[in-house]
């Protein structure tokens, strides 16, 4: 294999290849830095990474980042306004439950503020929403969401689990900027903590649970743990037990059930999937 020739060949059809790969010298230097330390067998993998970085973004990186952050900001506004109403609803038991939902509300507010600043800093225009932009009954599907505690928790759980999946799906779009990628990951794991806690709250409250189902902090198969099919799209695909072509069930001869295999990996959702889920909540 001759790396120099491969790049020369690409140069014939794409004269900008060296610009894409930074400069010719840096490209070779950076490749040498990487490939020098890894075994021969994995060189195609390293090459793949190098070209993927150069060619993966369809739009200019900054535009893609701003679009992605605005998508995240939209979801944060959806959540933040939900929790404002939830905390003010008067149906949350005082004590641990109210404390938890208030904390989550505040985190969502912090996410809104952080993303708004980040988008401005990147030269973009942050989106903005108010309570009037949302219909948390989703056109009547969740009628009574702020008067029935079990329903309120069920919608909250769905928002958080969906948020986790949404951030997961968008992470690769932020790869061209370390700071934004890291911040998105830091929000992502906070949403996962929220999701886990809401699932604990639902199991403890015992409301809207399907018969015979235990709602755990992690997602078992593609079970929503909610006695309503209206939320199922948020859990579609979560039963997956194949990762990168590897079957996780009983992997390595270990006694790993399909349930555990599905729980061990959360699955991403595409932007379109997320939009289909949240669009009914926009007035």
């Amino acid at each position, binding site marked *: *294999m001759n*790396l120099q020739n491969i790049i020369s060949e690409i140069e014939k059809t794409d004269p900008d290849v060296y610009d894409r790969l930074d400069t010719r010298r840096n490209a070779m230097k950076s490749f040498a830095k*990487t490939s*020098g*330390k*890894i*075994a*021969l*067998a*994995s060189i195609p*993998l390293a090459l*793949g*990474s190098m070209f*993927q970085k150069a060619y993966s973004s369809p739009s200019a990186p900054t535009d893609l980042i701003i679009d992605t952050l605005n998508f995240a900001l939209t979801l944060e506004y959806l959540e933040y306004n939900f929790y404002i109403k939830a905390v003010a609803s008067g149906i949350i038991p005082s004590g*641990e439950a109210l404390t*938890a939902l208030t*904390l989550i509300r*505040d*985190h*969502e507010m*912090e*996410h809104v503020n*952080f993303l708004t600043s980040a988008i401005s800093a990147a030269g973009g225009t942050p989106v903005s929403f108010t309570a009037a932009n949302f219909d948390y009954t989703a056109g009547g599907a969740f009628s009574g969401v702020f008067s029935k505690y079990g329903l309120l928790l069920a919608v909250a759980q769905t928002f958080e689990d969906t948020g986790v999946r949404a951030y997961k799906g968008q*992470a*690769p779009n932020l*790869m061209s900027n*370390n700071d934004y990628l*890291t*911040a998105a*990951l*830091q*929000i*992502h*794991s*906070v*949403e*996962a*903590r*929220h*999701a*886990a*806690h809401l699932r*604990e709250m639902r199991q403890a409250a015992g409301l809207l649970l399907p018969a015979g189902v235990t709602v*755990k*902090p*992690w997602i078992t198969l593609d079970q929503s743990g909610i006695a309503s099919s209206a939320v199922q799209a948020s859990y579609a695909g979560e039963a997956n037990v194949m990762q990168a072509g*590897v079957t*996780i069930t009983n*992997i*390595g001869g*270990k*006694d*790993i059930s399909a349930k*555990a*295999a599905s*729980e*061990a*990996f*959360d699955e*991403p959702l595409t932007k379109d999937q997320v939009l289909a889920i949240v669009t009914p909540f926009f007035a």
Partner: protein
Amino acid sequence: MSNNVLKEKRPAFSEGVAQPFSRRKFLGIMGAGTAVAVAAASCRKENFSKHINNGTKGKGNYGVDLGSGDIGILNYAYALEQLEAAFYMQVIDHPYKDMSVMEKVYLTDIRDHEIAHREFLKAALGSMAIPELDLTFSSVNFTQRSSVLGTAKAFEDLGVSAYNGAGKLISNPDYLALAGKIVSVEGRHAAWIRDMITPDSFAGPDVVDMNGLDVERMPNEVLVIAANYIKTKLDASNLPTS
């Protein structure tokens, strides 16, 4: 760097498989040319580190080389998952006093998730995987709930911060997506364990800052903490830094 250098080193590589690579031979190759990095590649883990590790023999102090690039980051994750899986296996094998039925079920789930993560990374890395690490949990009192859950909390929060910090070090978007699939599950573990210790501490101010962001740590910071439990010396010097 030319292709020839890689080819030149191949005999040494296969020779090392049959016969442990001696430190002298390793240094000899290093001195022989400018391809220091290539030499390091040729004799990484299987041939070199496996035999001169822990920093206990000789003055080399090299340890097990995690590797570079995405392989290095995956090995770094594999090391942490080995730690977590081994810990929960011991927790379930020797349940603490008065472990509730629910705690037993959930801790068993977590054990299985960590084993799944460990085995997946091992399978994905194939021949590039670091060896099984030598671990110690001597600081943990497995009979005591507070000691076990306190350690579990430390491991889960550490794992979350490690994956959050490592995301930017990954080049291949597929690997980033895989890391993302794992980190949120670690976040769910962390939240539940924290709530078991102190209600409503699932996303406390010690892990979520004023911007609503979780902790992120670079590999060097993580490995210093993990070294309290990982006896095998790990060499993270070839990991990407940005």
